[in-house]
Every structure is written in structure tokens, then in C-alpha cells.
């Protein structure tokens, strides 16, 4: 996975709470056996009308947010199914950071394991970012090392993140390779179970 630290990008305001992973990536796209190529299916049924044409009022189709790397949404983002295809689609589409007041647990883990930075900010802070982003293209600077999010208008928020996840993201580690360093401890645990 790719290391992540500083991102500068306009934010994409998705002003909804309880966005479930069925909406992020719909089941008809889960049959692929690869990790790549899911970006075009991200929020497919919100981005498209039933006839397959673009839904003009959906935020991902708004040209002001083209090339955005930061997705902002409301509470409990990524709830429901554990499908890792959801973060794969988010990443493949081009987002590297998600900002929300809270996340579903499995989705949060899945983001970190794929080098996506999920930032938790207070409800009020997220609401302010959403409002600014909806009014006009609003550029954010995200700094993981410093744990800050700052805007072009001088707004600056800091966020908390588990130090273990922070280091994983900054260094882009392969967690499995890391765990292999504990092989002896795993073997010792297994030996104890057999007694």
C-alpha cells in the first residue's frame, strides 16, 4: 500500500449520514475477483439515472469537484456490509482521504488497510466543511503527520488517530510482513492450546 501524509485538494461534499457500503459499491459489481477497476462503479446508482445516463444533481457529477481527493460526509459513513470493494472503489476513483464525524468499524479498518486516511472531525466541523464545499470549490490541506486539516480561508482543525494506524499509513506498511515478526509468539500460543 502507498504511504500517505500530505494531501491538497478540493473537497467533495456528500451531505448524507448513514451512507452504507451497498450505496458505495452495489452488489452487481462484487463479482470481480480483482482489487482494481472498481472506481467507475463508485456510488453507481446515485451517479446514474435508471436509464444509465448521468444524474446531474449528484455531487460526484459536479465539475467543480473534478479530481477531488477528499470526500466529506456525515455520521456513520460506510455502515452495513463488510465489502472491502467499497474502499477499493473510493481509492480507485481517486479519493485518498475521507472526513466524517464517525465511521462504521469494519469500513474504518478497511480504509486504513488500503492506505485511505479516514479522518474523524466533530459534527459541527464537518457540517461547516460541507457548507463551504457546497457553496464553492473549497480547497483543503490535510497533514497526517501533524494531524491537521486546514482550509484556504484559514480554518484549521486537528484530528485524533490511533498512533498504530498513523504509522501504518505514513509508512505504507505491509501488515502481514509486520506480523510475521511475531511468528514465534504465534507458534508459542498454538503450542499452549494443544496442551
Amino acid at each position, binding site marked *: 500500500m502507498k504511504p500517505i501524509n500530505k494531501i491538497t485538494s478540493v473537497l467533495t461534499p456528500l451531505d448524507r449520514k448513514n451512507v452504507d457500503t*451497498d450505496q458505495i459499491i452495489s452488489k452487481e459489481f462484487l463479482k470481480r475477483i480483482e482489487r482494481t477497476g472498481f472506481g467507475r462503479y463508485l456510488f453507481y446508482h446515485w451517479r446514474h439515472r435508471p436509464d444509465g445516463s448521468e444524474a446531474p444533481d449528484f455531487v460526484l457529477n459536479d465539475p467543480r469537484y473534478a479530481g477531488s481527493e477528499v470526500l466529506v460526509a456525515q455520521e456513520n459513513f460506510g455502515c452495513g456490509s463488510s465489502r472491502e470493494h467499497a474502499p477499493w472503489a473510493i481509492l480507485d476513483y481517486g479519493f485518498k482521504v475521507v472526513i466524517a464525524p464517525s465511521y462504521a468499524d469494519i469500513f474504518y479498518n478497511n480504509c486504513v*488497510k488500503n492506505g485511505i486516511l479516514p479522518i474523524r472531525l466533530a459534527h459541527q466541523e464537518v457540517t461547516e466543511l460541507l457548507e463551504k464545499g457546497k457553496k464553492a470549490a473549497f480547497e483543503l490541506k490535510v497533514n497526517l503527520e501533524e494531524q491537521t486539516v486546514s482550509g484556504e480561508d484559514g480554518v484549521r482543525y486537528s484530528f485524533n488517530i490511533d498512533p498504530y494506524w498513523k504509522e501504518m499509513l505514513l509508512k505504507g506498511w505491509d501488515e502481514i510482513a509486520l506480523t510475521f515478526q511475531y511468528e514465534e509468539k504465534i507458534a508459542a500460543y498454538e503450542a499452549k492450546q494443544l496442551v
Partner: protein
Amino acid sequence: MAKNIIEKIWSDHIVYAEQGKPDLLYIDLHLLHEVTSPQAFEGLRLNGRKVRRPDLCFATMDHNVPTRNRDTITDPVSKKQIQTLQQNCEEFSVPLAGINHPDQGIVHVIGPELGLTQPGKTIVCGDSHTSTHGAFGALAFGIGTSEVEHVLSTQTLWQSKPKTMEMRIEGELGFGVSAKDVILAIIAKYGVDMGTGHIIEYTGEAIRKMTMEERMTVCNMSIEAGARAGLISPDEVTVEFLRGRRHVPAEEAFEEAAAGWLALASDAGAEYDEVLTIHADEISPFVTWGTNPSMGAGIAGHVPYINDCENPEDQEALKQALAYMELEEGAPLSSIPIQHVFIGSCTNARLGDLRSASEMIKGRKVHPSVTAIVVPGSETVKRQAEAEGIDKVFLDAGFEWRETGCSMCLAMNDDAVPAGERCASTSNRNFEGRQGTGSMTHLMSPVMAAAAAVEGRLTDVRVFMNEPVLS
């Protein structure tokens, strides 16, 4: 010091702990299916890694399998996914109950059926409904595909210890109220993120009186409450369910194991980070009207009014849900017509579920405007139901009796609800498009779904239960 079951299982499984890091937790059972595993096996191949403990893995095919014409999968992408699991299991020596195997079924139905699921185990699967296995007093949770790969390689996971929550169900359940109503009422009361960052233990007399199948229904939907996992302390009901199953110890060894299981139950006076309660009086036969599982109410209720919501954000969410569901605010729930009925899924497709729905439907007919299907949770459930003549009851009433799989719960196979049509469903999620693009889902118990099939609309099953069948 008094400990709850969550703390006991957690501390029993720590391989390595260090201040400032998550714990390295040992995994006792890893269940796999065709949708969330291919990329994990591919990761092993790319890195030249092997499966550390294939003997602690068990795989099946459920999400994508057809429920009729089993041998002819027409969708080439589905077919490839199913073949890929077959090949991966062969290559890495993982036990598999494949599409034509007598043990095949929904992964969360067959784990308990085979006795693989046992109290005190840590159980994971690349599927959020892994919480089902918590009914046995196991610590069972859903993981993503990267974590599937991690468990395959190391049989461990780095996990920060979640907070603990007691969800107490007080009092005795009323007439016609089932386990599904209990969990739907809990989620409606406390919300879809009530359990985020927590493991829930369900307690109380109502839980103790439930069968293992009913307990599985409750624990299954812990994820719909946002919880990392949900579980129930083991008791004699748990022990008797497991006795004689294929993967549990036999004879004396069983008694010894059972004593250990019972000792896992939360100690009297154990504490939790949070304690919530619901009283049985608050729970009646439930249906959902919206686009997440908390958007539900007792069948005698109505769709909420926009002005019932206090803040503008909730009003907006309600408007979006009602627009999708094509419902007016204030509409009585029992006036909502349905075109489809689905009895199935890891929530409600066990023998007890099919039995109760069949008792309801016996001597009655499916409404002419309704297409109704039953999809048993496993091959074993299907065989047992057929031995009892349950299939015949459903067929006589006008239901279709299908092969097993996840089917119309998520409509990855051909079983989908068409756009603009409504389904009374015993599954677990009513998200937009869940049962088919543009489809509308109303979640409920098996008996409520059976009653809806007869009436062609959402209806109170208690009326039927009081009414003798005239035939």
C-alpha cells in the same frame, strides 16, 4: 473481580500485547465464501505465502449461487467467482462445502449446524453478519478482504479492544412477538450506530427463553446496530444445541468442554462500558418502512411525519427515505401493498423460521398479486424441512421452494425484486437497491412475511394467529 464474557474471551486469545498498540489476537475459526476471498488468496500467491492453519478454515459458496438450475450458472462472472473459490480451496487445502455438497449453505447457518461454531471461540469471516455466531457465546465479527488475507497468513488479527455494552431485554415477550421483532425494535429505539466501537452482550429473561435459532437472529443483526460483534452467554440451551454435532467433542470430552463453555458466561455483577435496556412491552410485531434498519415501527404504527424529526438533518434523511420508498408521511404501515415475499437469509432461514412461517401459511393461499419464495438457509435445513413436509405446505400455498443460498437478501444471483416493486423480506437490510436496483424492502419476521404473502400487504400476524383456518 467479576468479568463479562467479552473480557474473558478477549484475554484468552491475546498472542501479544504492547502498550500503545492493538492486541495481536488469535483466531480459532475462519469462515470463507466466494465473494470476499478471491483477492485474499491472490495476495497469498503474489507474495509466495501459504495458509497457516487450513484446518481452522472452512469455506462454502452462498452469495452468488443460483437457487434453481443449480448446474447452469449463466453469468460468466458469477461462474468464475465460484470456480475461483473451488480452485483456491484445492490449492491451499482449505475444507470446502461446494455448490453440490450436502453441507452447503449460507456460511452463518452451516457453521453452527456443523458444530464448528462453539462458545469461547474467536470467529471471523469476510462478511458482516459473522456476528450471528455470537449466539453461542463466541466472539465473532466480520472483516474485510485484507484482514481475510492476514488471517489466512498468520491466523491472527491486530485488534484494539472494543468497548463492552450490555443490551438488556426486560420482561416477557408478548403474543406473536419473535426474535426478529426484538432486534428490529432495539435498532429502531437506539439507532443504526448505537453499537459502533462496542461488542454487545444481550441479556435478560427474554433472551434466556429463546432457542439457539432465535438467539442467532438477534446476534445476526448486531451489525445493523453498528456493533463490532454481538453475543449471548452460553447456557444449557447452548450446550444441548451443540451436543452430537459433527465438530464438537464426543462423550466425556463433550461434558468437559460443556463445563468450560458454561464457565465463560458473564459473572454476576460484571460491568460494562455501557448498559441499555428495552422492555418487552415496547416490542410488537415490527416492520421497517425506510432505507435503513432503524426506520421501523410496530405494525399498528404509521410512517413518521417529517415534523416529528427534531433537526433539519433528520428531516432531510427522512424525506430521502420516503422519496425512495414511495411512501407518504403518516401512512398506516398495514396499508402498504407488497408484490414479493422473501423468506430466507442468514437472519431467518433456519428450520424454526421455516416451521413457524409454514404453520402460519398452512391452509391459506398466497395473494394473487404476490410472488413468494422460500430459500432454506442450508442443504441440511432443506432436507429437514422436506422430511417434515414443510416444503409441501409452502408449495400448496403458492410459494416457490428453492435451493439454498443468500439469494434475494442481496440479489447477487438471479433472485432480484424488480424496480418499483416492494418486498416483505425476512432478511437484514433495507438499503436502497439492496434486493434489486430500484426495489423497496420491508424487513420483518418469518411469520409476518407469511401473513403479508396471504394479504398482499403488510399486516399484523396476530390477527391470523387468533383466527382458525377454514378449509
